[in-house]
């Protein structure tokens, strides 16, 4: 057996998570993600997709299992006590964008971007502002630098949220249904930004209901249902000609786009 030259970026082992005894959301999830991969997670509501990302971000405790990040232990719980160990240092190398715009309403766009760099990394305000303006320019938002979130469209807010996460130079980006709350005509501008990041080889984990987007962005697709991975493979397989019955049902019923 040959050892891989680089460790997997993410290794999730036997993740268990429940909300109370009746609601088991993750039932022993094993996922490995290599550096440079863009993982799209699809599946029915309640199948554990969003929980998976929230666990990865360290927002939810787990009942049992472990995650390593870049070969380093990140999250673990042995299931004996109710404790979940999270390495917050490791967590800082992960960025996340949420379904609802989570911009801080009392701060303008630039202030939203530089809050964490200044407070967490103790970066100088002038340096952070310069980087922020650079990012905003790249995303076509330079004119909105001084605007408040309430003055932005949904698509603009979501692009700002992406820029805000990028300010901390994440090694992995998590996108949790980031276009689900948007008006249809605003979806493309957000997806363009994510595709732009993909072109720069940013590793990402994406939960989405948008199959066109999934097909375009994914290097690998995971179909998740009932708290386990049902199918895992390249996008042409999982979206185009799924091997598993349940995946096929899902693709047929919900998206009607099986080619």
């Amino acid at each position: 057996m040959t050892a891989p030259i680089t460790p997997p970026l993410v290794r999730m082992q036997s993740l268990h998570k429940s909300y109370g005894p009746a609601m088991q959301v993750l039932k022993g999830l094993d996922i490995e993600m290599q550096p440079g991969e863009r993982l799209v997670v699809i599946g029915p509501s309640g199948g554990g997709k969003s929980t998976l990302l929230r666990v990865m971000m360290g927002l939810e405790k787990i009942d049992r299992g472990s995650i390593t990040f870049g070969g380093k232990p990140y999250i673990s719980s042995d299931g004996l006590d109710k404790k979940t160990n999270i390495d917050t240092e490791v967590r800082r190398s992960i960025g996340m964008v949420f379904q609802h715009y989570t911009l801080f309403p009392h701060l303008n766009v630039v202030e939203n971007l530089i809050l964490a760099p200044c407070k967490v990394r103790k970066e100088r305000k002038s340096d952070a502002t310069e980087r922020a303006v650079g990012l905003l320019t790249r995303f076509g938002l330079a004119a909105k630098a001084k605007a408040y979130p309430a003055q932005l469209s949904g698509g603009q807010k979501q692009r700002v949220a992406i820029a805000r996460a990028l300010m901390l130079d994440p090694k992995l980006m998590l996108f949790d249904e980031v276009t689900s709350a948007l008006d249809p005509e605003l979806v493309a501008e957000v997806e363009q930004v994510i595709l732009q990041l993909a072109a720069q080889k940013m590793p990402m984990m994406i939960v989405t209901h948008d199959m066109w987007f999934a097909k375009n962005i994914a290097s690998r697709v995971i179909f998740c249902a009932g708290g386990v991975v049902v199918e895992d493979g390249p996008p042409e397989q999982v979206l185009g000609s799924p091997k598993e019955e349940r995946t096929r049902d899902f693709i047929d019923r919900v998206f009607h786009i099986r080619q």
Partner: protein
Amino acid sequence: MNYSFDFQSISFAPLWEGLMVTLELTAAANIIGIVGGFLLALLIMSPIAVIRLPAMLFVEFFRCTPAIVQIVWFFYCVPMLFNVFLGSMTMGILALGFNLMAFNAEAYRASIQAVFREQIDAGIALGLNPFQRILYIVLPTAFRASIPVLLTNGIGIFQQSALVAIVAVQDLMYQGKTLATETYRPIETFTVVALIYFAVSFPVTQIVGYLERRRQLLMS
């Protein structure tokens, strides 16, 4: 009705003086209410019961008894129980201020707890520690959200302050009562007094309405 109104005999000087006292009471009570109410809100959200329960009792006492009873109680019982008498103006300020503190604490608590879960999640995802999340996200958002209620409560205290006239604070109401007795013109006097209260309160309620409409727009 053959009553003939006579506003000529109403002299405005004492009413003006009274209004100044009323505004002073209102301002001082609001300082206590806005600052103290915030601290009280932190106490009633404490996970430690020994801190939380007395604070909740304080809030509920002021919310569940008539303000006039609180004021009378303050004036007669506090000096006797604690052997302190601070002058009627100070006592009036404290009575009104504590009342406002209780109501404002509830306003703060409601808006702190209404800060969206996702906002806090975003703070975690950005690496802010719990203290930084409270300081930079929860409190500024919550404070802004509670401004309309703080203004409404504050102008409520402006009106409630008329109650301290019964314990000899020489506010607008007290001056009105005196004037009515002196001039035998209670209808005219209290009409003018009511109009003065209205003239101050009405613009504030309009501002509150404007802020609330604007906020709904911002949140949509």
